[in-house]
């Protein structure tokens, strides 16, 4: 087995065993979208694609937030308690470690986001009788755009947690989340399709997500062992 899958599988297993993170993620995955679902159902017209668009717009930031929630365990905790130092002495490169961890974070975060999407779609459908989940662009959004953004979130936040000190990291979490949400809204506004579900908007979001993953990879490659060790509290 490659070291990538060794690391990713371990992080996944730990994530699924971490009750407090699961509960935080779960509450957020259910509570926030259900509350929004009532708003969507009330405000939107009868057109299914508009309803589906509102769901898509809520789910992307939730995916980003889930990436952040699951990073805390995989990156931040191991840094806080110093375990990361021993891991840095293994033959795995720092980037290799980051890749495995980011992937191991992204998978449970994505699954949690899908749960959230399913609950939202079911609630909206129940309230409006519109078959939102059958909307092809929403399915594309959930299957392609969301996972890329979850991976970008896990990757960027993970790289930052490796590189920064504990105090900076606390502030940074919020900066990241709001930065991501701002970016999503801005992209939707500038995309030729405009806000709501359209092929162009989805393509722009997917491309931007891929660019963010590449950026995260670049940043992770720039972080040095020394940087990580000196920021261990």
């Amino acid at each position, binding site marked *: *087995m490659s*070291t990538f899958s*060794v*690391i990713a599988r*371990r992080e996944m*297993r*730990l994530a699924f*065993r*971490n009750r407090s993170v699961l509960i935080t993620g779960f509450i957020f995955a259910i509570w926030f979208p259900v509350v929004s679902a009532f708003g969507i159902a009330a405000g939107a017209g009868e057109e299914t694609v508009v309803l589906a668009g509102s769901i898509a717009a809520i789910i992307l930031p939730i995916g980003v937030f889930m990436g952040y929630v699951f990073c805390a365990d995989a990156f931040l905790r191991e840094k806080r*308690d*110093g*375990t990361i*130092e*021993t*891991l*840095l*002495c*293994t*033959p*795995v*490169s720092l980037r290799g470690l980051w890749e495995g961890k980011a992937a191991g974070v992204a998978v449970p975060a994505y699954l949690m986001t899908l749960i959230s999407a399913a609950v939202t779609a079911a609630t909206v459908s129940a309230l409006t009788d519109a078959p939102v989940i059958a909307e092809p662009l929403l399915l594309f959004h959930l299957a392609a755009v969301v996972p890329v953004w979850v991976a970008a979130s896990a990757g960027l936040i993970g790289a930052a947690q490796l590189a920064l000190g504990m105090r900076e990291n606390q502030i940074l979490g919020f900066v990241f989340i709001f930065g991501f949400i701002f970016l999503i809204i801005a992209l939707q506004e500038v995309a030729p399709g405009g806000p709501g579900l359209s092929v162009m908007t989805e393509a722009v979001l997917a491309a931007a997500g891929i660019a963010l993953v590449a950026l995260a990879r670049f940043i992770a490659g720039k972080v040095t*062992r*020394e940087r990580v*060790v*000196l920021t261990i509290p």
Partner: protein
Amino acid sequence: MNAVEVRGLSRSFDGRDILRDVSFTVGHGEIFGYLGPNGAGKTTTVRILLGLLAPGAGEARVLGRDLAVDDDARARVGVLFENNGLSDRMSAAGNLAYYAGLYGVEDPAERIDELLTLVDLADRRNDLVGTFSTGMKRKLGIARAILHRPEVVFLDEPSSGLDPGAQRMVRDLISELSRREEMTVFLNSHHLDEVQRICSSVAILAGGRIRAFDSVAHLTAASGRPVVTVALADPGESARAREEIARLPFVAGCEMNGEGLLCTLSDPGATPDLIAALVGANFRVEEVRRSSRSLEDIYLEHVAPAEGGA
């Protein structure tokens, strides 16, 4: 080529010089004790050797390699820091299996069994490490450090938190590893007694500099302090023997203590004459032992002046 080579190493933090022109070497298969007071820079030296910190000046090589850039060479090195490198939410065996995967250990199941038995944790193999005591975690940390059969292993205070029985287990294990697997052991320790028993050579770091670097045998050799302890078969005779000894021309002083008679000789080569004189006076001599200085004496001699005016 030595297993570990440190040459002219310096490093500072925030303008404070922690290491200044530090040099020493560790031969293959040696057990090396790296000593020094708290904050002397022992862990910093190990971090530089492992490529976790960059040297300010000089170089630090393990197996001739720079571990900061050589991923493959890191696979031949093991380490135990103050943090054991274990996850509390995984089992003992699960933790070892993870590192086995990272190091690419062949036949990990067998090796894990062997190590868990070695550190006396076989019956706890499936328990979460979070439920372990400090000492149990330490033992598992040691097993983790040697899991991939490294050629060189760095142990930063391995016996901290261990009970006397476990300390002995660790001591025996280290000796055994160096003897049987020809592993080089780099030991940071404050247990001078432990170091004296198992290390072949030591370096003493204080005030940022190496104050002594030599074999343990050489450092603790009795030279310069001709003190001999004489035990008589009948300790009741000690007082009379002491009067006899005090009269001898090559004896500078003689005291009684719990072990027998502690004689300071004015001529370092006079031990046989002392024995001959006692036997000639019909004392039954049980044991004569040249007392060597303990590593602790030597350590304090080197560290005290450095702490005072470094």
